[in-house]
């Protein structure tokens, strides 16, 4: 019997390892590419023939592409908007899961529908709205737009909150907790894993977005984020020669995200709600 357990475990390990390889190989390729000195965008081999650090050096020395500055811009935007977005998402989810008010049902349906219009068509409109409040070309504008988007992405959280036994809220209510107290002291601590997910998603967004951010930033290169920066490096003329530098840039982008994830991993805890209720 023990053997059978062992065998299934071995199978699981094998599958997981195989999958991990499939998932990680392209990433490894990017990492290797970032150290490659020869060739361009396309090579038909895996391991570079010559390794170099020049691609990284180039990112931090070339004044046309102030990567260091872009990196800090993005970091700021990502940290602020991840914090705010997570807060807003969670707060919306909580309101819609636990609070009773008149338009709740309709709001839930409406929110589902609202995001269905192709986003790129609204970019120009949003640009002018930002312009009307005098915010274009600034990091604040970017943060504002990312955070505003968070208000409609609450469905996963809401679903999660729905699984937390309502008895706990009731019990807290009788203990004299306001809804806000309940949110803070009961719901949030019990939702750590899903908050990790939200935060991570919100944090990665600014590192990836090259369309919207570009529209907002226009020609203000100093305020570019890495994604726009890298993307604008990919013109017909430069794509091939700068490709290894993009790869290096991508590797650098991955670093803070991975660090954040590793830091948040400890919030993945099993059995959060066990022992709460009988029934």
């Amino acid at each position, binding site marked *: 019997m023990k053997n059978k357990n062992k065998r299934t475990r071995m199978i699981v390990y094998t599958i997981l390892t195989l999958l991990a390889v499939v998932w990680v190989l392209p990433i490894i390729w990017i990492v290797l590419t970032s150290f490659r000195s020869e060739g361009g965008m396309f090579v038909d081999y895996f391991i570079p023939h010559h390794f170099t650090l020049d691609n990284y050096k180039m990112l931090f020395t070339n004044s*046309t592409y102030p990567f260091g500055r872009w990196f800090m811009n993005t970091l700021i935007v990502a940290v602020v908007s991840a914090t705010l977005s997570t807060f807003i998402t969670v707060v919306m989810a909580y309101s819609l899961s636990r609070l009773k008010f008149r338009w709740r049902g309709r709001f839930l349906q409406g929110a589902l529908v609202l995001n269905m219009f192709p986003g790129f068509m609204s970019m120009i409109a949003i640009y002018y709205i930002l312009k009307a409040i005098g915010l274009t070309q600034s990091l604040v504008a970017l943060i504002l737009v990312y955070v505003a988007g968070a208000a409609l992405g609450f469905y996963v959280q809401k679903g999660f909150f729905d699984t937390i036994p309502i008895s706990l809220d009731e019990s807290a209510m009788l203990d004299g907790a306001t809804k806000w107290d309940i949110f803070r002291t009961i719901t949030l601590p019990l939702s750590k894993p899903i908050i990790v997910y939200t935060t991570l998603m919100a944090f990665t967004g600014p590192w990836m977005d090259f369309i919207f951010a570009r529209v907002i930033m226009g020609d203000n290169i100093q305020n570019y984020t890495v994604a726009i920066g890298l993307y604008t490096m990919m013109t017909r*003329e430069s794509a091939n020669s700068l490709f290894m530098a993009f790869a290096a840039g991508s590797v650098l982008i991955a670093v803070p995200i991975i660090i954040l994830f590793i830091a948040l991993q400890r919030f993945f805890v099993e059995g959060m709600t066990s022992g709460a209720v009988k029934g």
Partner: protein
Amino acid sequence: GIFVSNNSASADDKAVKLWVDNKAYKPIVKQFTKDTGIKVDFKIGQSADAQADLKKDPSAAADVFMFPHDQLGQMVQAGLIYQNTKYEKSIKKDQTDSAVQGASYKGKMYGYPYGVETQVLYYNKEKLSADDIKSWASLTEKGKLTTNFAGDGANYKYVPLFMSNGDYLYGENGEKVKGTNFNNDKGMQVLKWIAQQKDNNGVIQSTDAASLNKMSNGKADAYLSGPWDKVTLKKEMGDKLGVAKYPTVNFGDGDKQMKTFLGVKLFGVNAQTDKALNAMKLANYLSSNKVQKQVFDKLGYVPSSKSVQASGDVQKDDVAAAVTEMAKPENSVIMPKLPQMVTFWGPSDALINDAYKGKLTSDTEMQSKLDKLVKQSTKSEK
């Protein structure tokens, strides 16, 4: 309007905002400021994005900007670009006819040309001799040509084949909406020729990025591309790299010069600018012979000025020489700048791809597809 810009055209001490795609322009602009006292707000931006950025918010856009000439039609249509009346004469005098044509639309001049761009033939001198590359047939027999018939960008590379065979795209000057006649016999010849290339062992189907790699590692010997690939190829191939004008092609009734699209690089002045005179001065300065020469030295942009083109430095450079050669009217067609081009690019790409892949199995299908292409891309204005 709600965002009314101050439309006095008088010069004031506000800086002129400039979008160029390379910081090598910086000292040149400094010199301009020194000479004229006009301050310049120098920004890096992609010339290919100029139209989109301008359209998005003209009032926030640059006063002077770089752009490829094929965007001119729509810019004029949307009223984004200032007419160039002030320096029209000198430009007509100094610049090649093609460049002037590229800077004008419907009889009026808008742009300030500073360069031309065409595709050329890169080849491996060790594998192919100067004779081998004279015609497509010998080129692909002696060596291997890597190119992209089946994917994105086939239109840009191979639509000029139709013109090589005598057809027109939007008329002789590229401004006539109803002027496309690819659906005639000559057009059929070209399309069939394209379909035949699938079985040509000398043609390797590759994306551009892969082509560069194949050239580098010797798996291919020839490649049709623009000057922008020179640096990469030179780095990888060194002295093996040869540059030449396009070969001839035979569609069935004799060799004809294979043509390429000619692009003209322009400076433009934002129609909404509030410092028009200064802006025009700057645009003119940036397209002047002196600056064209400087830019050629620094960046290798092939000049559009007649005199600079003819100068020794340019002619010594193999790529520049090839480009100026290709830029001649017998070797290239000016890319049309009619707004309708957008209705042409996609379908023509699809047509060439499908023809090459062998998806068009019968003559009638080819004919009907050509008819459709012509019909779709030549719908007239309402």
